[in-house]
């Protein structure tokens, strides 16, 4: 269990790290994009902490999932919203948990359907083992060591809470 206080701390650390990376790379007007739903909760806080100029973007990757034909379609897909053009822009992509890497692949595919970003930086609140694609995060809040049947889950939006659950 990771409680609210710890999560606030984690997110502050992530914000600091991101700020440092942006400064080092001299990036002025990065576009932050949160992935529905948990990633967006984390992104909202990071966006506030970093005081970014561009409004926050939202990405729903349901239409881009590669397991669509297995799990079917979720009728409650929310529209993706990118407030500005992604062409030649530096993107800060935010998700809650990095596991297989498939969600990030889908998100990057969707971003590339909107245009050609200058760079994409990936920030995740948590990461765990089990990658199925060569995808790594640039900024990680916390690393989880999990058993084979364990999963880590973020609930929210208020308060944010990370919990480890047994997979059924």
């Amino acid at each position, binding site marked *: 269990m990771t409680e609210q206080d710890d999560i606030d701390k984690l997110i502050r650390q992530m914000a600091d790290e991101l700020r440092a990376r942006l400064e080092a790379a001299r990036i002025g007007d990065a576009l932050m994009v949160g992935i529905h739903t948990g990633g967006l909760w984390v992104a909202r806080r990071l966006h506030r902490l970093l005081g970014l100029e561009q409004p926050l973007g939202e990405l729903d990757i*349901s*239409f*881009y999932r590669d397991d*669509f*034909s*297995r*799990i*079917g*379609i979720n*009728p*409650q*897909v*929310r*529209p*993706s*919203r990118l407030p500005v053009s992604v062409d030649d822009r530096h993107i800060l992509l935010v998700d809650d948990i990095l596991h297989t890497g498939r969600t990030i692949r889908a998100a990057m*595919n*969707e971003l590339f*359907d*909107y245009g050609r970003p200058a760079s994409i930086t990936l920030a995740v609140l948590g990461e765990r083992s089990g990658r199925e694609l060569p995808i790594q995060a640039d900024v990680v809040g916390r690393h989880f060591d999990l058993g084979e049947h364990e999963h880590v889950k973020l609930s929210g939006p208020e308060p944010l809470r990370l919990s480890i659950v047994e997979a059924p």
Partner: protein
Amino acid sequence: MRRHSLQHDAEGRLRHLLTIEGLKRAQIVDILDTAESFISVSDQQVRKVPLLRGKTVVNLFFEASTRTLTTFELAAKRLSADVLKININTSATVKGESLLDMLHNLEAMQCDMFVVRHADSGAAHLIARHVAPHVSVINAGDGSHAHPTQALLDMFTIRRRKGEFAPLTVAIVGDIKHSRVARSQIHALTTLGVSELRVVAPKTLLPADVETLGVHVTHDLDEGLRDADVVIMLRLQKERMQGAMLPSEGEYFRTYGLTEERLARAKADAIVMHPGPINRGVEIASSVADGPQSVILEQVSNGIAVRMAVMSMVLGRAPREEGA
């Protein structure tokens, strides 16, 4: 020996969409909700999603149609499917043989979905019975039987405008007898539970025993329109003037044509729908078709999202059985 389950798989999910009849209320609502999320796809700058990438959709049209064919094609393309169009000369398929040959050819083709339009009632069911187990069939209109995607886009349009179905009074006006659209609308509206569903037409344009579908019948347009929330006008085929169905277009328009004056009997915020193409001055006056209460163009644009929803739900149902 009833074959109610043809369009559902063993788990009760939609495998084909052949008719609205037999769909559960929740299933229809699911389709409408999914269509709602696809509306955002057509609104934003990226108009295409990769949901059906690698799938092949074959539009199999045994009967001429521009609009329906185009919207199905657009819907499939926006889902990144490969789309193939086969227009079959209807005169060549009058005899059973060529349809049979066609079926065998289609079985040999590696495709995932057939969108079928045919002049005979039951054609989509027939094809659905003969396709390989992984192939889905969507009925894009068969004879006078069904046109489920049209009815769904109409329901979608009504829901966007009116919200709930339960309080609504709906009037369907015109050639019910020959209309597959009307049959599918009636099934959809009764399943969604509108408060009152009326059909308005002279007896020559009403099938015998139409009340068994759960509608109120009236032959008087003014009575049918009274306090209606939704008015659906049906297209009157010119050939109905032959064969003693109707005396003349003029008399039809005077008796059953929708004019501004007659529309005033419906509720002030009533919407006017028409599956198109419109015969102006035959079933509907231009001033109504282009007027503030008309949602006819909205129906057309909603058609794409609804068809995207149906296609993705039917194909996104289950893994292929073969090759684990």
